[in-house]
């Protein structure tokens, strides 16, 4: 694996290796909060064409804990225009000798293009592209689910996970459908028909228009952010109607299995897709998702540009302890 552009780039074993590595790294971080020397002398660039403070900070923290040098390149608001900008920016980064470029872009496929055209030699990591994919988010979601429901072990077979909300525009949903199914889980997409893509029947996931029909049987409920502008594009009539039919509220949480968890990739629209009771309930692992994101991204960087495997890490840990 040279780049991480899509969950499709990963085999099931690759994905499990990332999760296992993240487990080890998180255990070490929790205990000592120390830095690992793995990426000393390496340069990691955060190339963000779109604002996303939380994702950028998460990658930055991950890279720094592995001792990499981090360059933050925010292309938004600078003189970047359409067209050549992506190419020119890439060539600039190439000149700086980036070992990995973490790219967030508003256009689906921009990271794939960066990698395919080989404007840069370094690894390309997709940190969210348009309405396409967000693979590290899916990995951290899978990590979180596995931690709570599988004790950090093995795959996700036997679990049923609901992904609720604006599936049509969600890169988080696309990556999660691919990854969770790859890991053996059953995925059910819950959304109004307007917010499901034409062609969703090829995804292999179940589809439901009623959250109340599925919530009692799910092991995890992943709420997607719904942008208020979607209302103007006629995807749903009003915020109230959306919240009533698809929002996660106290009554729905009460229907959930004893062990089931509530997830959200953030940032949340409290009162729209999730109520305060939902976000702050004891089932909510939303804050934990953020911490897990750093471990998972460390694992991705470690395996992608550290030139190492999870076994090497085990050995390394053995040496140091």
């Amino acid at each position, binding site marked *: 694996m040279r780049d991480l552009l899509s969950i499709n780039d990963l085999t099931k074993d690759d994905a499990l290796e990332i999760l296992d590595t993240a487990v080890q790294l998180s255990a070490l971080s929790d205990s000592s909060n120390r830095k690992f020397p793995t990426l000393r002398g390496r340069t990691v660039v955060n190339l963000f064409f779109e604002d996303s403070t939380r994702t950028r900070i998460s990658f930055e923290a991950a890279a720094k804990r592995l001792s990499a040098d981090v360059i933050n390149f925010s292309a938004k608001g600078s003189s970047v225009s*359409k*067209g*050549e*900008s*992506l*190419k020119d920016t890439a060539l600039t980064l190439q000149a700086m000798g980036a070992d990995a470029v973490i790219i967030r*872009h*508003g*256009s*689906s*496929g*921009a990271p*794939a*293009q960066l990698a*395919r*055209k080989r404007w840069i030699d370094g690894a390309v990591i997709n940190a969210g*592209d*348009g*309405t*396409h*994919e967000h693979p590290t988010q899916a990995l951290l979601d899978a990590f979180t689910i596995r931690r709570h429901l599988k004790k950090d072990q093995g795959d996700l077979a036997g679990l049923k996970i609901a992904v609720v909300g604006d599936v049509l525009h969600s*890169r988080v949903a*696309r990556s999660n459908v691919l990854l969770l199914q790859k890991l053996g889980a059953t995925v059910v997409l819950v959304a109004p028909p307007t917010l499901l*893509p*034409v*062609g*969703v029947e*090829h*995804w292999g996931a179940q589809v439901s228009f009623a959250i109340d029909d599925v919530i009692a049987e799910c092991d995890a409920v992943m709420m997607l952010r719904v942008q208020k502008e979607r209302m103007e594009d006629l995807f749903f009539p009003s915020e109230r109607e959306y919240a009533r039919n698809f929002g996660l509220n106290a009554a729905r949480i009460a229907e959930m299995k004893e062990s089931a968890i509530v997830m959200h990739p953030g940032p949340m629209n409290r009162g729209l897709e999730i109520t305060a009771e939902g976000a702050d309930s004891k089932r909510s692992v939303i804050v934990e998702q953020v911490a897990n994101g750093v471990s998972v991204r460390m694992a991705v960087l470690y395996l992608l540009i550290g030139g190492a495997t999870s076994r090497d890490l085990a050995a390394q840990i053995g040496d140091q302890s």
Partner: protein
Amino acid sequence: MNSWLIKNARDLQGKDVDLAVANGQIVHVKELHHQYSELDAKGLTLMPGLVDLHTHLREPGREDAETVFTASQAAVAGGYTAISAMPNTLPVADTAGVVEQVYRLGKSHGLCDVFPIGAVTVGQKGEQLAELVAMNQSEARVRIFSDDGYCVADPLVMRRALEYVKLFDGVVAQHAQDPRLTENAQMNEGEVSARLGLKGWPAVAEEAIIARDILLAEHVNSRLHICHLTTAGGVELVRQAKLRGVKVTAEVTPHHLLLTDEMAATYDATYKVNPPLRTESDVQALRRGLADGTIDIVATDHAPHPQEAKDCEWSAAAFGMLGLETAFSICYLAIVKSGLLSLADLWQRMSIAPAKLARYENHGELTVGRTANFVLVDLNKSWKVDAGALKSKSKNTPYDGMELPAVVEKTFHNGVLVYDRENQGREGA
């Protein structure tokens, strides 16, 4: 060098044929006088020059992408002796002045005939009819009108245009695309767009306009031409309309006969085109439609773009791909090699039928007394597409590196050898 005796060629039926040319016309062999060049065309097939009714020449306004001259060079290299300049230039070809400018440019270069297509509405804004009669009566004698690139979406404007062109036996060529259903659309809506997260351009956005326009043309008894048909549903609408006797014709591009929306999975914007590449079943329906005559002609929708318009993220890239230099080979591959049509039938749809549809009197036929617009093709050879070696000023071909059958060897326009593959260019004057 304007008198020729072409010997030992084969015609479209595979029969041996000699062809004599003098003063730009086809003549009886015995009418040839002492000074003529003899050309041994053994192994080559001789056919009327191809006629394209859908070409973007970009001049005036975007000479960085293509000019009338470079498009003419590309045309004759592809075996075309007539091309039709779409009006979406800067300024828009919506007046007699602009269409005459383009027509004269084509004439001055003298490689092939360049027939301008006029805009239906002022500035292609879809609001007010352009002066269609003035364009028709200009030196350019515009016979086809289109707002191509944009759909004439307002039903009343479309109705009036269809009625108005009856004044001079004109035809309205519709780029069928409902604008509301395709806002910011990037590719065919379906399995692939769902996977790639690119905004969908649904087949229904094309078919709804085709259906409406067929009904309008039927109501006012006018000629309607559907540009670049891409969907199985659109083929069926045209088929049913023809059965009812509606005066509707339709075209298909070479790329829609070969490529599918799966190509978008590379996110390589070379494959970004409007209307978009569709599914395999659409491709098959288009091929059958062309074979059974539902689709009358092949048109290239040759759409040059400078490299920077394609070397970028998909959603920022321009729509369109080159077509002139590869059209015949692609159609030969998709239609003749696949056994759907004979060579003669394909040629009918790429030369005779478009010439007739557009009333280009000097094209599509090779009988004594006609203008000598013809090509010599080697059907037994193949060639490897090299984007960098194309005559077009732009390089946005989706076939770069592909090995294609059928090689255009020589193209004659008005009896002049305007393209000779051996000498890579123009001979005579």
